[in-house]
């Protein structure tokens, strides 16, 4: 197929389940040989997008081409060019890791010896050789996820779909998974992944699309996106309620988050001394209202707040009371 065309191209994708509009016109373009991340909270429509692009579900409206083929009219060719590693593990617990890979090899039309060789190679590459002869049911979450990904690679796909490849993994397994995904691109394949974590998209992706409520609300390189939310956040702890309320009023829509109980609020900044000093002077000209401050790098919540007016977990901008306190805990935890 035409060499310079994009690996994935979608326009105006719409999908409803019953009365629920899940996708409301999604446009995407992914260059060959790149990693593309679809970033969004629960229920944003990530899995639905992946299922449409991997031909499992037809869209209600819109068109998409993957590896140069139309996902509706040329489903068979698309399927030969892609692999899908879904959100939920698609390996048999009662088979060993090796048997799972052999089976995938046979199903992707490899000969017996070829399938054996490919299985050995992938087990080696994903650090599963020692567990090759064990039932997958005895694997840890990280091992299972790696095997799941390996199973998707058996047939040398051109375009790889990974739906939330690291959700539920501990930090070490996550890092291992990231290394694996980075390794894929050196083979020249295109990777389309979904994630709920900005740091993951940041680490892996050449370009990111942020989805929310079935729409792409922002698209760009990780650097461009972080610039749009200023990249940093200044958190202030005020001395008293009066000072806190005055600051909240003064900042208005610039407020990124706030927690009335803890007299704490956050505002976007580039992190430079000049900007932080200017903000402090603006909020607290008499130099008595602000007790302490900290500067954080932007989290997914900040990106979402800036782009959509609510956090990734669905709290609104002017959340007060309990939900704001929860937001603060989460912001502190991220």
């Amino acid at each position, binding site marked *: 197929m035409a060499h310079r065309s994009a690996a994935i191209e979608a326009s105006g994708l719409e999908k409803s389940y019953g009365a629920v509009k899940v996708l409301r016109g999604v446009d995407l373009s992914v260059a060959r040989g790149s990693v593309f991340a679809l970033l969004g909270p629960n229920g944003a429509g990530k899995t639905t997008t992946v*299922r449409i692009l*991997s*031909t*499992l*579900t037809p869209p209600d409206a819109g068109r998409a081409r993957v590896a140069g083929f139309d996902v509706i009219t040329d*489903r*068979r060719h698309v*399927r*030969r060019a*892609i*692999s*899908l*590693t*879904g*959100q*939920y*593990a*698609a*390996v*048999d617990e*009662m*088979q060993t890791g090796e*048997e799972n890979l052999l*089976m*995938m090899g*046979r*199903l*992707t*039309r490899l000969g017996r010896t070829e399938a054996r060789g490919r299985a050995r190679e992938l087990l080696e590459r994903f650090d599963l050789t020692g567990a090759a002869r064990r*039932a997958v049911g005895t694997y840890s979450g990280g091992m299972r996820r790696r095997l799941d990904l390996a*199973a*998707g690679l058996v*047939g040398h796909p051109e375009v790889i779909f990974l739906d939330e490849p690291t959700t539920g993994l501990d930090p070490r397994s996550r890092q291992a998974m990231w290394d694996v995904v980075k390794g894929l691109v050196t083979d020249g394949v295109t990777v389309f992944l979904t994630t709920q974590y900005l740091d993951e998209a940041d680490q892996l992706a050449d370009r990111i699309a942020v989805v929310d409520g079935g729409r792409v609300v922002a698209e760009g390189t990780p650097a461009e996106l972080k610039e749009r939310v200023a990249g940093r956040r200044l958190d202030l702890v005020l001395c008293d309620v009066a000072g806190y309320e005055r600051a909240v009023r003064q900042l208005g829509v610039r407020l990124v988050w706030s927690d009335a109980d803890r007299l704490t609020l956050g505002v976007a900044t580039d992190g430079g001394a000049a900007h932080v000093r200017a903000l402090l002077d603006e909020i607290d000209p008499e130099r008595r209202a602000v007790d302490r401050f900290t500067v954080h790098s932007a989290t997914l919540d900040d990106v979402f707040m800036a782009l959509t007016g609510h956090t990734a977990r669905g709290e609104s901008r002017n959340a007060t009371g309990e939900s704001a306190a929860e937001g603060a805990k989460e912001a502190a935890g991220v």
Partner: protein
Amino acid sequence: MSDAIVLTGRTIRLTRRNLDAVLTAMLLPVMLMLVFVYFFGGAIHTGTEYVTYVVPGVMLLCAGFGSANTAVTVIHDMTGGIVDRFRSLDIGGTPILAGHVAASVLRNTVATAIVFGVAFLIGFRPHAGPFDWLAVAGILLMFILAISWLSACFGLIARSPEAAGGFTFLMMFLPYPSSAFVPIDTMPGWLHGFAEHQPVTPVIEALRGLLLDRPVGDSAWQALVWCGGILVVAAGASGALFRRRTA
């Protein structure tokens, strides 16, 4: 076709490692046979040794009950992620279901043979020639095949593994209102119509006739027509049911 073979191998491996299900499929009919022969058999008059009378019914119970388990293996796949992966490899519903059905046929052929073995041990003495045996094997095979496909359809319709398990219950119960364990004319009149015309009855009558070297009459044809009909309808419907389930 080659996909179906690979997937049959898969289901056989999965079954071998889940021996509980296989043992249940075998033990339940054997236990029932022992209960009927030793506890109830003395009180039931069939005109022959009771063990000889009851074995065809037990074979059928074993075949039907075991085959019904296909519903459970199918729904297990449908609710996990693996079917999406198969579909993204361009493997359709037919090879996936055929894999389940083929594995079910192998599993239940073995289970049925073992139950036959136990029947011999407790005094089952058929008077069947080699052709009769071939015909018995053929009818049982058709029955297992038909019930396995039908069961696969139930697996595609069911919303939960528990609901799919309900089909095994149905298949376990169906032989009772038939001539499997007691002659139909000992049942209340209102039951005769159902018991004489339900699909299990001609299968049992045919097996009994062949094994005991008695006239088989129309029952063999009726059995084949029933099984063939169920097979055609179930296999035909399964494609549409699979597409509906995965849409």
